[in-house]
Each structure stands twice: as C-alpha cells, then as structure tokens.
C-alpha cells in the first residue's frame, strides 16, 4: 500500500492533528467544573458524532447526484460515505455509554439526545446496507440505495427533533446534566483540533475505501473480459 493511494493530504492532516490534540486533551485542557476528568471523553464523543453527520450528509448528497448523473461512481461514493458515517456513528454509540457510565453511573442514558438519535440512525443505515446486500450489483441496486439514502435526508433532522420534543414533553428521569459547561478557550481549541483531525481521518479512510471499491469494479470487469463474457 503506497502513500499515494492513501490520499496523502487527509492522512497527513489527521496524522499531525490527532496526536497533537490528544496531547492537549491529556495535558492542557482544564478539568470540567462539574464532571472533572471524565468530561474529556467529550473531545472524542462529539467530534466523531459531527463527523458521522458529515459523512451521512455526504452520502445523501452523492445519492442525489447519482439519481441525476446515473454515474456508478457517484453511487460508490454515496455508499462509502454512508459506510464511514455508520462507522463513526458506531464510535458514538460506543463512547456514549462509556461516558454515561463514568459520568452518571449507568451504561445507558435514554435522556442523552445524541445517543438516541444515533441509535435511530444506526438502525436506519444498517437497513441501507441490508437493502444493498439484497440486490445484485448494477444500476438497480444503485438506484434503490440512492432512494433510501434520500429518505435519510429527512430522517436525520426529524429524528433529532422528535427526540428533542419528546424530552420536553415526557420528562425522562432527569439526570442532572451540565449541558453547556463553561467552555473555556482552551477547550474550544482542543475540540476544534480533534474535530478537524477526526474529519481528516474520515476523509482518509473514505478515499482509501473508495479506491478499493473502484479497483474492485475494474477487477470484476477485467475478469469478465478474460473469460470472454460481455462486460456489463
């Protein structure tokens, strides 16, 4: 695997920002007034959540593009973007409970908006993959996937709103939350760096996986040609 195929720029950015930001997280940022040291998970949990949203949005964008251009590469871009979105989403679902356990003493918190939204989105986009696996490769699979991803455009904000509204009406057992802690400049800077680093990492992985898929496709066509079959 040579450096060129890695999409060097995002890797370089991620490679510098993330270790640096991690150092800041460990040594520089102050303890949170309410939660103390454990609040530092925030610098991981929220950036991966935002990056996940970013890639899911990108996936929807490429899905719309596919429906216009019918270019199979747009379909692959959409698929890989959604894949990254789900991967980062799973990071949210893993770090969330850890944070909940150390902060509030329980492994799951139905009052945590992000966790709820990501749970719904995780289910929705897992269904996306199931849909993809239920159709053979080709324009039909691409079109159906794009259609479902399109529904996701509406679902992301709607899920968020639904969870938020339900909170105000139903009042789950309130865990005293320090929503919006006093953000100091150092926290903001570190957060920003982690966010940028995570996004860069996401893009690096995105470009590698996309290239892999494209080469896969070329291999498939090559093999068919070699067997003397017509190439689809």
């Amino acid at each position, binding site marked *: 695997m040579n450096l060129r195929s890695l999409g060097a720029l995002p890797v370089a950015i991620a490679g510098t920002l993330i270790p640096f930001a*991690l150092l800041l997280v460990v040594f520089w940022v102050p303890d949170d007034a309410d939660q103390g040291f454990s609040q530092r*998970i925030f610098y991981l949990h929220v950036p991966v959540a935002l990056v996940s949203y970013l890639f899911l949005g990108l996936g929807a964008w490429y899905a719309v593009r596919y429906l216009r251009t019918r270019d199979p590469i747009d379909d692959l871009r959409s698929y890989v973007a959604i894949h990254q979105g789900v991967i980062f989403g799973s990071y949210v679902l*893993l770090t969330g409970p850890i944070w909940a356990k150390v902060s509030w003493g329980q492994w799951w918190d139905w009052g945590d908006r992000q966790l709820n939204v990501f749970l719904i989105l995780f289910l929705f986009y897992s269904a996306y993959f199931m849909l993809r696996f239920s159709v053979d490769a080709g324009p039909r699979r691409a079109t159906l996937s794009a259609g479902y991803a399109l529904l996701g455009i509406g679902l992301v904000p709607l899920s968020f709103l639904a969870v938020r509204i339900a909170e105000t009406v139903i009042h789950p057992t309130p865990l005293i939350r320090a929503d919006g802690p006093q953000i100091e400049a150092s926290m903001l800077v570190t957060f920003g760096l982690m966010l940028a680093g995570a996004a860069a990492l996401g893009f690096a992985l995105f470009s590698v996986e996309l290239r892999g898929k494209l080469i896969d496709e070329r291999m498939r066509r090559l093999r068919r040609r070699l067997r003397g079959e017509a190439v689809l």
Partner: protein
Amino acid sequence: MIELETAVWYVGAAYAVVWLLTILYVGLLRQKLGRLERDLAAAEEQLAAQAPDEHAGAGV
C-alpha cells in the same frame, strides 16, 4: 464525582476503543487490497497465457 483513577481508566478506554476499531478497519482495508493485488496478478497471468492463443486465432 468519580475519583481520578477510575475516570482516567474510563476516558482511556473510550479513546482506546475508537483507536483499536480504526486500526481494525485499516487492517481490513489492507487485507482487501492484498486480495486485489493477488487477483490482479492472477489476471495478468491469465492474459499472458491467452495472448499466444489470440495470435494464433487472428490469422484464421
């Protein structure tokens, strides 16, 4: 508030989980690329084997 030691453990665990999963994912990608390279080599061989036949057939 939880004591510092446990807190450090949990925070570390969160970062470690994400890190390990990312490494795992990269490993899977490398595996896939390796497979692609092997397939490519096999296809090249096949093409080389076919080429002599193609030249023979072209004259017909």
